């Protein structure tokens, strides 16, 4: 605790880098995954699932340092980390997004068609809102794991909260490592709570029962 207080501003700086490297992949990866879940035809779902499952299994450090060979980026620095985190976010969110869209009842879709909605209206006003709970559940998983994996970026020179692990181990300060663990968990929990609240705000009909009584 003393270490945490004494190094408060240092940790805050690392946390800022940590967030700035995690938030873009969470948003970008989720959007790409949602689009993929919508446009990939059913017959390609099984191969997509196998490929994404295999990519998900790749250890993050290996993915960070293999990207330069494929993309020509620099070995050290945030670029590879952001790209790799986006790829992981896609692999995880794709499955959640597919489930979320499949949970929309067919009868509701047929009804909205019968009411004269076109495909775009059906998607924006019926399908997307009804998929929100599933999408939020998937996003919560993506947010927690992205924040957690981002710390490995410290090995390739990104000064985020993962730096506390490496530095704390080398200097034999357990408090430093534990501060890093706590800071990452707090950020993950805060994001999780934020997404939960967002989900509630976006689906007001789900807590409407109280108002009706």
């Amino acid at each position, binding site marked *: 605790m003393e270490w945490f207080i004494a190094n408060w501003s240092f940790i805050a700086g690392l946390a800022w880098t940590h967030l700035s490297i995690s938030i873009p992949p969470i948003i970008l990866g989720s959007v790409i995954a949602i689009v993929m879940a919508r446009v990939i035809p059913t017959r390609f779902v099984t191969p997509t699932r196998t490929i994404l499952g295999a990519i998900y299994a790749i*250890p993050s450090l290996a993915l960070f340092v293999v990207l330069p060979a494929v993309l020509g980026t620099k070995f050290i620095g945030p670029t590879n980390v952001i790209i790799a985190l986006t790829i992981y976010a896609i692999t995880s969110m794709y499955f959640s997004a597919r489930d979320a869209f499949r949970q929309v009842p067919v009868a509701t879709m047929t009804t909205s068609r019968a009411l004269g909605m076109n495909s775009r209206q059906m998607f924006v006003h019926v399908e997307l809102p009804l998929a929100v709970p599933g999408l939020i559940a998937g996003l919560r998983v993506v947010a927690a*794991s992205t924040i957690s994996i981002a710390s490995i970026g410290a090995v390739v020179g990104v000064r985020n909260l993962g730096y506390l692990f490496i530095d704390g181990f080398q200097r034999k300060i357990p408090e430093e490592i534990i501060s890093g663990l706590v800071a990452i968990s707090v950020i993950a929990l805060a994001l999780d709570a934020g997404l939960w609240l967002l989900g509630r705000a976006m689906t007001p009909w789900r807590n409407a029962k109280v108002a009706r009584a």
Partner: protein
Amino acid sequence: MLDVGALGAWFSDAANWTGRYGLVNLLGEHLWLTFVSIALASLIAVPLGLFIGHTGRGEVFVIGLGSLSRAIPTMGLLFALVLLLGVEFRELSVVLALAVIALPPLIAGAYSGVASIPPSIRDSATAQGMTAWQLVRHVELPLASPSIIGGFRIAFIQVVSTVVLAPLVGLGGLGFGIIQGLALRNFAQVTASSLVIIALTITGELLLGYWQRRAADRLGIPTNLEKP
């Protein structure tokens, strides 16, 4: 971009395959650390998961453990445990840390395998006069096997990825080529090592996925391989 020539030269140099830090030795060390720690964890996790699924006691614990384990970086856990358990018994501390990382997915796999068995199946087993032990041994364990294997699959992914970081705490494993290569700016070695790691993990993932599907097919139950 990918320097195929340098990569080929690195792979065809026999010196990179043999010796203490040769690929063969590092691969062996990587696999050994992975298997020992998963085996150690499964001794506790599988019976515990089966017990929680069977009795229904401690379900909240399993769910909480699942979300907690996702939010805590395995890297920090590994470093903290090695530092706290002592750097003198480095290998033992790393194995224990890896076993801790393997626990949540193994418990969750065994638990959800038992929890998803329809009550009617368990009731008919009891109605036939099976004892609690027979119910676990002959009904719940076989029916939960695909899910248990699924737990091993996720534990494998988690542990094999964390072993890549073992060189940072003074051990070997295939991550050595990456860590040393980055320090020495030997990028052919970095790329070669990461390709070997990727091949290893994808092979393991596919094998365990195949095993899980086969176990499910044999029981005629649909596999939910969707969520990795």
